[in-house]
């Protein structure tokens, strides 16, 4: 980006896939993500959602922040930063991580790709270069490069996704286990494919240099033509991720460094991500605070709820009694009617000590300008709402 372009602030950046994606965005339904012009949806959010669940679909993840962390101390630096043990991560593998403040509060979540013994790629939803800079302070040999604009990335999800990649000629792609990284020659360059995604289903993410972005798109769409390929936007993603039980900033959690009020941010334990916190590691950021939190038990726990009826419990308060007379025990963070599982689902922050008792949601909804209120029984679900075996199988079934 030129520092001399006075218009820089007024022009959203265009993804390398934009020339193709814009043709398909018939509704011109654009919003913005990290400074990129970004599709809210292309034709119809629910249609796109069903493409993800039933066929295959692409999601432009160029705006996702990508950082290359390189150098002799790269592993040590990342290992101190995140709560998981990165030293256990094998070459060409990916892992989902969270990182916390000294007080054990979530700064952000993301994935780490181990590309070489001294080279990692970190991806996350919003910019984290300032935190990375703080984290590298004091290490002798580690450099962080923002490569967001240097890599074009496309998430490719859905039951037919593996078949399409095979059709495209990516030999051996079916052997990729979840969180594996594979590389394929592509027009004289390398196409990196990871078996990762944000939909809770079979899916891949494709990484290529921006100059070959359109070639990739064209080959993928040509191979996927008979498999129902379709781009999907933010709206459909949000539906799929909620079914998969994945958390979103500004929905399930506040990024700690952007939080104004004391302890209005969350710990991994509150977000039910305790499994990401590896206390066998002697040190990582927030360890002391998290150890205390673990001993004490989190005040709130993020919980999956199946709610009776069909009115989405968006923004609802939760109570321990049907009359909603006692003090509220929590609140819903995300909610929707799941078209695939035919259930009224939600993620909710609930007081840990109230999880065993009854849970009732106070739901407000509207019918033709009349406003109604109802109280619905909630059932805690241990498993994600959507978690088909194919998401984990290697090789995956052909659809």
């Amino acid at each position, binding site marked *: *980006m*030129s*520092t*001399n*372009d*006075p*218009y*820089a*602030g*007024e*022009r*959203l*950046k265009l993804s390398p896939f934009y020339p193709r994606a814009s043709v398909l965005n018939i509704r011109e339904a654009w919003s*913005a993500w990290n*400074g990129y012009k970004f599709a809210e949806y292309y034709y119809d959010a629910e249609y796109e959602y069903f493409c993800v669940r039933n066929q295959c679909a692409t999601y432009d993840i160029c705006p996702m922040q990508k950082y290359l962390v390189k150098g002799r101390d790269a592993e040590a630096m990342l290992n101190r930063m995140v709560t998981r043990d990165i030293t256990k991560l094998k070459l060409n593998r990916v892992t989902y991580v969270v990182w916390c403040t000294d*007080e054990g509060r979530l700064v952000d979540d993301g994935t780490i790709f181990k590309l070489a013994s001294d080279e990692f790629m970190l991806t996350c939803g919003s*910019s*984290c*270069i*300032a*935190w990375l*800079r703080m984290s590298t302070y004091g290490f002798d040999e580690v450099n962080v490069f*923002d490569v967001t604009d240097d890599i074009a990335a496309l998430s490719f999800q859905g039951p037919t996704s593996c078949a399409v990649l095979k059709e495209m000629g990516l030999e051996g792609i079916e052997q990729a286990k979840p969180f594996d990284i594979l590389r394929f020659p592509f027009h004289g360059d390398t196409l990196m494919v990871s078996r990762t995604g944000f939909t809770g289903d079979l899916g891949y993410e494709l990484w290529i240099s921006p100059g070959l972005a359109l070639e990739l798109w064209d080959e993928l769409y040509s191979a996927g033509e008979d498999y129902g390929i379709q781009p999907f936007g933010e709206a459909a993603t949000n539906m799929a991720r909620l079914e998969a039980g994945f958390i979103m900033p500004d929905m399930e959690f506040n*990024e700690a*460094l*952007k*939080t*104004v*009020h*004391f*302890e209005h941010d969350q710990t991994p334990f509150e977000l039910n991500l305790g499994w990401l916190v590896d206390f066998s590691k002697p040190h990582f950021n927030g360890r002391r605070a998290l150890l205390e939190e673990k001993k004490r038990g989190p005040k709130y726990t993020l919980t999956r709820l199946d709610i009776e009826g069909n009115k989405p419990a968006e923004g609802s308060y939760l109570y321990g009694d049907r009359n909603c007379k006692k003090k509220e025990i929590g609140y819903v963070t995300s909610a929707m009617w799941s078209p695939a599982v035919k259930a009224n689902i939600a993620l909710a922050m609930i007081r840990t000590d109230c999880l065993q008792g009854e849970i009732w949601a106070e739901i407000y909804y509207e019918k033709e300008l009349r406003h109604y209120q109802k109280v619905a029984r909630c059932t805690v679900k241990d498993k994600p709402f959507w978690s088909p075996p194919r998401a984990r199988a290697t090789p995956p079934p052909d659809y």
Partner: protein
Amino acid sequence: MTGKTHDAIIVGGGHNGLTTAAYLAKAGLDVVVVEKNPHVGGAAVSLELHEGWVYSNCSYVCSMMRQSIHRDLDLTRHGLILVPYLGTVNFGDDGQTLIDYPSEEAAHLELKRHSPHDADSMHRFQADLARYAQFIRKTLLRTPPDPTSMRPRDIRELLFLGKQMWSLGEREMYEYVRFFTISAADFLEDYFENDLIKAAMASPGIIGTALGVYSPGSAYILLHHVMGDVDGNIGAWGLARGGMGAISEALASAAREHGAEIRTTSGVQQILVKDGEACGVVLENGDELNAGIVVSNLDAKRTFTRVMDRNDLPPGIYEKAKNFKIRGSSGKVNIALDGMPQFTGVPDNRYVNRGGQGFTGSLKTMERAYDAWKHGRWSPDPFVESVIPSAWDPTVAPPGKHWMSNFVQYCPPTLAEGPWTPEERDAFGQAVVDKIERYSPGFKDLIVHMEVRTPHDLEQEVGLTEGNIFQGELTIDQLLFNRPFPGYAQYRMPVKNLYMCGSSTHPGGGVSSACGANAAREILMDLKKPNTVPEDDFYDE
């Protein structure tokens, strides 16, 4: 000659004096405001100094006006409307520009072209600043407690402050102390690397103060300027339609509606004290007005050293007033323009001038301007903060013509060589015009009329000692329970029945009406009248 006896006389019709008058009158008191100028408003005025052009020739922007007062006194019905700025453009030393867009996405991209790191860090900066601002805002419409007192109310208020502090959490308590005491430059160093971004963020830290960006304490002043809000957007600035005088006129109109009398061209010669109690004033024309209480809207130094007899004061007060830090450090150049100036390196669109222009330079440029002030000079490369209100206020310039307000930091109250002369004043104005011309070639040719105001002029016309726009420096020794003097921070002055309601009192300068409202609350309490002054509203923070 003895006139009729009023309940209260307000000395000075600045916006705080008018606020006090409105609230006292609203409570049913017989109130008279005496103002030396032919117009009310003090430093919040709109004056037609060139035919067709209306200048807000002193204060020029509004962000701190307490909305609960605006709402309570129904100022909109009295003609006041505040319209927020769109983004401000900052100009760096090297011709670089930085635009503060209203859209978060756009602002982020704009920052990113200067420094991706700083663009990211801005989120943390804004969250931290919002946290500090929320803390301070809760104190604005409250009377500071006296920490040496054991009265239940003082203890309660002290506990309130303690509780606010405690609710920040341990880390933020310390961070808050740090923020409150360090320099703007050190504070910003923790977030930013880019010179222009640092400079743009630091600039509110020097406005109106005799401190530099490297002086400890300037970080708080930065907050003092951005803790205001327009419609809940912390840090947003706005213009009053019709100029800053519109605020004063609306307050005056509200006060009159409640029955207050406002006498302009009635400067006060002296505040009268009989048997140790304030009892009235003598006007410059010799008229004497009597009242149960006297409320001074003048600054602390002027009140006690100019309009009161030293013999009427308890021992030590005169010295305290003499030592009160009220340093002139700002100048103002008001310019009538033949057309809209074009600025280099700025997008050519209709939105960009609908905000401010900050001729910011870098931290060093600003600091060097401060160094010049210490030497009793003005800098050839001053910090100038400008706005072209006519870009969105149709009432202040003829159609197609414009007026530009240029606030200049720093400008000494007296020059090293001696007092200001008209020639020196013009040279100062020229330095400002030269600076703008560097970023807007052809600017000089657009000038139709120009008014240059040094601290000296401000003192002469408005009555602010040394031309200090805050009625006293905003340093810890003069804030909260130290403002204006320790032991007299609750609006009651050392002489019985004498009160102060101007910016020399807590919470200090800025067109906020908070000082005036707080003073009214204390007066009503002393008179055992029901309180009519609202609490602040915080948008349910």
